[in-house]
């Protein structure tokens, strides 16, 4: 395999397959909870943290583009975005939609300020930072893949363990509360999974398009099946296949950002599924 596509692409492929699987897996629940646009807002809110993480790792004299520090920064930044969204909706009459739109755009804008600031003082090679906006697998290192792979497996494991509780919570929050599982804990779990998936997806699909990973495979799977569990597995499968093929295409045509390729592939699969399921439906 590595002889065919090269060591670097093989690494990226492994990361993409694992990430695609767990993002589809988690995405099924995010989709059923109707929280797609929240994840979009979180993804954009990672940018300031990414740049600050980059600065920190540079000043600490770490290896450049130390992805763990960058991802940690992204996580803190997005978490702060969640806090701000809650602050706005709790304190004012502004709607949830306004709060997430404000956080999305202002955090991203501030991130761009930091990014251009880093460029003008040129403290190091910041070229890698832009890869996180639209996704690029060309510079993927072994440590990146290990982090992405391990975290993906953990997310999927969490979904397996909590699948019944999550299903009950999404379908009937009051019932789930009565059964002894506090709504805020379930809500927190799902937000946390969304946040973690968003962050490990930055490298592969980029912060602008990561929302598609949590939405499109789930919607496609929903067309084919009615059960929550089978839907989440199918969604994971779609996510994994699309991410894998996308990474290979992006490796063959390096100018194409992997995120954009993956999104277009997933959308084609969604379109075909709509047509096929409807043809099948009308024949039955």
């Amino acid at each position: 395999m590595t002889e065919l596509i090269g060591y670097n692409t093989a690494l990226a492929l492994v990361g993409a397959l694992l990430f695609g699987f767990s993002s589809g897996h988690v995405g099924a629940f995010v989709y059923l909870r109707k929280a797609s646009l929240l994840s979009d807002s979180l993804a954009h809110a990672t940018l300031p943290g990414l740049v600050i993480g980059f600065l920190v790792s540079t000043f600490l004299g770490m290896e450049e583009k130390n992805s763990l520090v960058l991802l940690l920064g992204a996580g803190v930044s997005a978490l702060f975005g969640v806090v701000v969204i809650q602050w706005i909706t709790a304190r004012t009459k502004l709607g949830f939609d306004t709060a997430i739109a404000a956080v999305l755009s202002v955090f991203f804008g501030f991130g761009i300020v930091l990014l251009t600031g880093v460029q003008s003082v040129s403290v190091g090679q910041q070229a890698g930072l832009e890869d996180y906006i639209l996704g690029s697998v060309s510079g993927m290192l072994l440590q990146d893949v290990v982090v992405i792979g391990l975290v993906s497996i953990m997310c999927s494991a969490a979904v397996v363990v909590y699948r019944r509780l999550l299903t009950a919570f999404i379908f009937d929050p009051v019932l789930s509360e009565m059964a002894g599982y506090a709504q805020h804990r379930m809500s927190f779990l799902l937000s946390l999974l969304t946040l973690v998936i968003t962050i490990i997806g930055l490298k592969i699909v980029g912060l602008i398009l990561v929302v598609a990973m949590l939405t499109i495979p789930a919607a496609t799977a929903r067309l084919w099946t009615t059960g929550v569990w089978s839907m989440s597995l199918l969604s994971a499968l779609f996510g994994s296949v699309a991410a894998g093929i996308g990474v290979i295409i992006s490796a063959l045509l390096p100018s194409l950002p992997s995120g954009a390729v993956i999104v277009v592939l997933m959308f084609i699969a969604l379109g075909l599924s709509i047509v096929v399921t409807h043809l099948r439906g009308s024949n039955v």
Partner: protein
Amino acid sequence: MFDDFFLISFVPILTGLFSALSCTLVGNILVLRKQAMLSDTISHVVLPGIVISFLIFGNLGSHFMLVGAAIAGLTAVGTIAVLRTYTSMDNSAAMATTLSVFFAAGVLMIELTAGGNVHLDVEHALYGNLESLIWIDGESLMSVFDSVSRQTIPVELTRAIIGFVLIASVMFVYWRFLIVSTFDHTFAEISGVPVGVVSAGVALAATNAAVISFDAVGSIIVIAMFVCPPAAARVLTHSLRDQVWLSLLFSSLSAVLGYAVAGYVPILLGFETSISAAGTIATLSGVILAVAIFYGKRQRSYDFLDGHQT
């Protein structure tokens, strides 16, 4: 430092200002309709329309860009409708899907055709290019009144002004329809207000504002101009009229101060180059919103069933 103000800063400031004002005007309606994320969707989906017009006409100055973007906007609205009809998607999932696939398609078009075309790249699409709007013949205020110098004013400014005037006058004429259909949809419908046309008009106005702002601030920061000034104004006042005027004030402040801060503060601090004007504008609008929420009086929430304060 201010010698070449008319050469370098005059056009960007005005372009930024009129773009921001257009977005804010439409944003007032979006925020009241609880459709703030429609600005997110529209600002992303216009990208392929802009790219296609660019590929056909070869520059961003073409007015066909507006047509291309409007077509992309309408196609996106159609896509959302199709997704909602044929899948189990709710509005937010349909918008998330549509915006990401349109944006991805735009990015791929840019990358696949890159090389020959110099002025369009993904970074430009993401955070605008306000600083590039240089007025070659801009020497002083008198240049504005000189018909020869005026010809070299970048078309982006002209377009921003025309777009603003268009949006402002349409909103002025249809103000009653806008308000009544936003406040009480059923009542509007039986009063003979064409509510469907009004909704489509709002989407079209948002598309228009997004496109004329595209050069100035790019496709994501433009969302801040739609949402933050109206939200800040809404926190501070209960009067719609005050809300609109305050939002326009905040919007102007963010646009003008944002450009100034981005252009001059790094230089004053001794750095060689400047930071992104568009990013600074968005950040400033966010700061204004945060200050408004901090200092605006904490809003009481009422339990509408018994009318008592909770």
